[in-house]
Every structure is written in structure tokens, then in C-alpha cells.
């Protein structure tokens, strides 16, 4: 059992457990699963700067910040304490394509160090992947009113067609980056 928990979990275990988080939050406190809102609450708490969208009672949303703190704690437990493979077992086709198209050679860890090492902030790669990438995530999720958790999981679970529009937008952006912009960058 312990060994089984330490292995990477298959989709049919992880997916349903993620899905159960939706009713768990509703039953435990009438809260809708959504993570990108936490970024807004942090902005509202730290740098409201008189902006109307950041002037509200963020203290009523502390549960969301605590949930996010838990996610970080879960990342520590899941990765550091429960063990992890050196190389993520992605498909051979993806490895081949990433080698050929993006010139990646190091496949250890959760993300390619060749793109995400902090030293990269000295060149364009670091700024595109670390700064621009993060910026677009923060800007886009709030503009769309949710991310993968709020729209794709919570929203679609509640049959919200608006969330389907959002998810189509997520994929359109992701596919454009992967298939059109990446080949131009590398």
C-alpha cells in the first residue's frame, strides 16, 4: 500500500479525487473550488492602491488563502516526503519532439531546468518563461474570471456553458503557444 502511494498516481485515481474536492468544499463550508482568486486576494491585501477591483473585504476570503497554503504544503508532502521519480514518465513522442524542437536535453525534475533555472533571468528565455508566462497566467485568469479549477472543474461540473467558452479559450491559447509560437522561438 505504502509503495503504491509513493508511485505516480494514474489519472483514474487522481481525477476522481480532484473531482471530489468540489463537493467537499461545498459541504464543508459552502465554498466553490477556485484557485486563481487567491492571487486577487493577495493583491487586495498587500497592494490595493485604491483600485476599485482590489478594494473589498478580502478577509472574508481568507479560507481561499488557507486552501492555497495547504496546496503548497501538499506539494511538499507529495514531492519531498512521498517520493518521486527522477524523470516524469511522459510519452516517448513528447521527449523526441521536445529534444528536436526545443533543444531540451535535461528531462529530470518537474520542469526543464534549461528553461526555468533562475540564472535564465539573465537572458530572454528566463524573462519569457518565468516572467511573461507567470504574468499571462495572473492577467488572463482574472480577466476570464477563473482558471482550470474555477472554470474547467468547478464550472463545467455545474454545467456552466460560460466555463466551456473559457476552457476553449484556454486550449486555443495553449495550442497556439505550443504549435505556432514555440516553433518561432526555438
Amino acid at each position: 500500500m505504502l509503495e503504491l502511494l509513493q508511485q505516480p498516481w494514474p489519472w483514474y485515481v487522481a481525477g476522481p479525487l480532484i473531482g471530489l474536492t468540489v463537493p467537499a468544499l461545498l459541504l464543508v463550508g459552502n465554498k466553490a473550488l477556485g484557485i486563481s482568486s487567491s492571487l486577487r486576494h493577495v493583491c487586495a491585501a498587500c497592494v490595493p492602491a485604491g483600485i476599485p477591483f482590489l478594494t473589498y473585504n478580502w478577509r472574508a476570503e481568507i479560507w481561499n488563502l488557507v486552501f492555497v497554503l495547504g496546496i503548497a504544503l501538499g506539494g511538499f508532502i507529495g514531492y519531498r516526503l512521498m517520493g518521486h521519480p527522477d524523470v516524469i514518465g511522459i510519452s516517448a513522442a513528447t521527449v523526441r519532439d521536445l529534444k528536436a524542437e526545443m533543444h531540451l536535453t535535461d528531462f529530470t525534475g518537474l520542469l526543464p531546468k534549461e528553461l526555468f533555472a533562475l540564472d535564465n533571468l539573465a537572458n530572454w528565455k528566463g524573462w519569457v518563461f518565468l516572467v511573461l508566462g507567470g504574468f499571462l497566467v495572473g492577467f488572463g485568469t482574472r480577466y476570464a474570471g477563473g482558471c482550470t479549477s474555477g472554470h474547467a472543474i468547478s464550472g463545467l461540473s455545474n454545467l456552466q456553458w460560460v466555463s466551456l467558452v473559457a476552457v476553449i479559450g484556454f486550449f486555443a491559447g495553449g495550442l497556439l503557444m505550443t504549435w505556432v509560437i514555440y516553433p518561432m522561438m526555438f
Partner: protein
Amino acid sequence: MKYFKYLVLGTLFGIILTKSEVISWFRIQEMFRFQAFHMYGVIGSAILVGMISIQLIKRNRLKSIDGEPIVLADKKFNHGIWIGGFIFGLGWALTGACPGPLFAQLGSGIGSAAVLILAALAGTWTYSALREKLPY
């Protein structure tokens, strides 16, 4: 203490995200390249289980443990939904992480996650400041 339950649920959520490797940039690339079923299986089965759960809650008019009726707000359409969604999608493919996984990556000890979260906060702040000028 009233927040402890959210810490527990968040921790479990973070463990699941981490153990299923959805916090990995490599997995997100594999998804956008349609080269494995893993991510689609995770997201699809999560939605299916969430959908069944919400139907059960609605049909049985379940209440939260505090005795409140459970309310689910409907999401309203505006053009920000797809424009913002598209912008987030670009960032999702670059960073290989949506907001939840960013926090799990931070906990796993990856330094870049701290930079990404700061950049995401800057993005959210900039959106907030420009909000009135953006198309909806």
C-alpha cells in the same frame, strides 16, 4: 481554527496534484501535443465526478455542515471569458502550470515557482488596474 478544514482539504488537493504529476511542465506539453491521455483523463474524470456530486447535492437539497443551503452561483458571459481565457492559455503552455500547480511547485521546493507566482500576482494586479479600459 475555523480555517483548519480548508488547510486539510488544500493539503490533500496539493498531494493529489503532485502525485498525479499535473504540476509538471512536461505533462502539460504532452497534453497540448496530444501525445498522452493522462491529463485528459485527470481533468475529464474530475469533471465527471464533480458533475455527479453537484447533481446529488442539488437533487437532495443537501446543506453544508453549518446547516446553510448550498448555493452555486451561475457564471455570466462577457467577452473577457474567452479573451482572458486565451491569454491564460498562452501562459499555461509557457509556464506549464495553472495557479493551483504553481503553489504545489513552490511547496515541492522549485525556486522558479516563486518567480512565477510573483509574476502572476503582477499580472492580476495589472488586470485590476486596467479593468475599466478592457473590452468586455
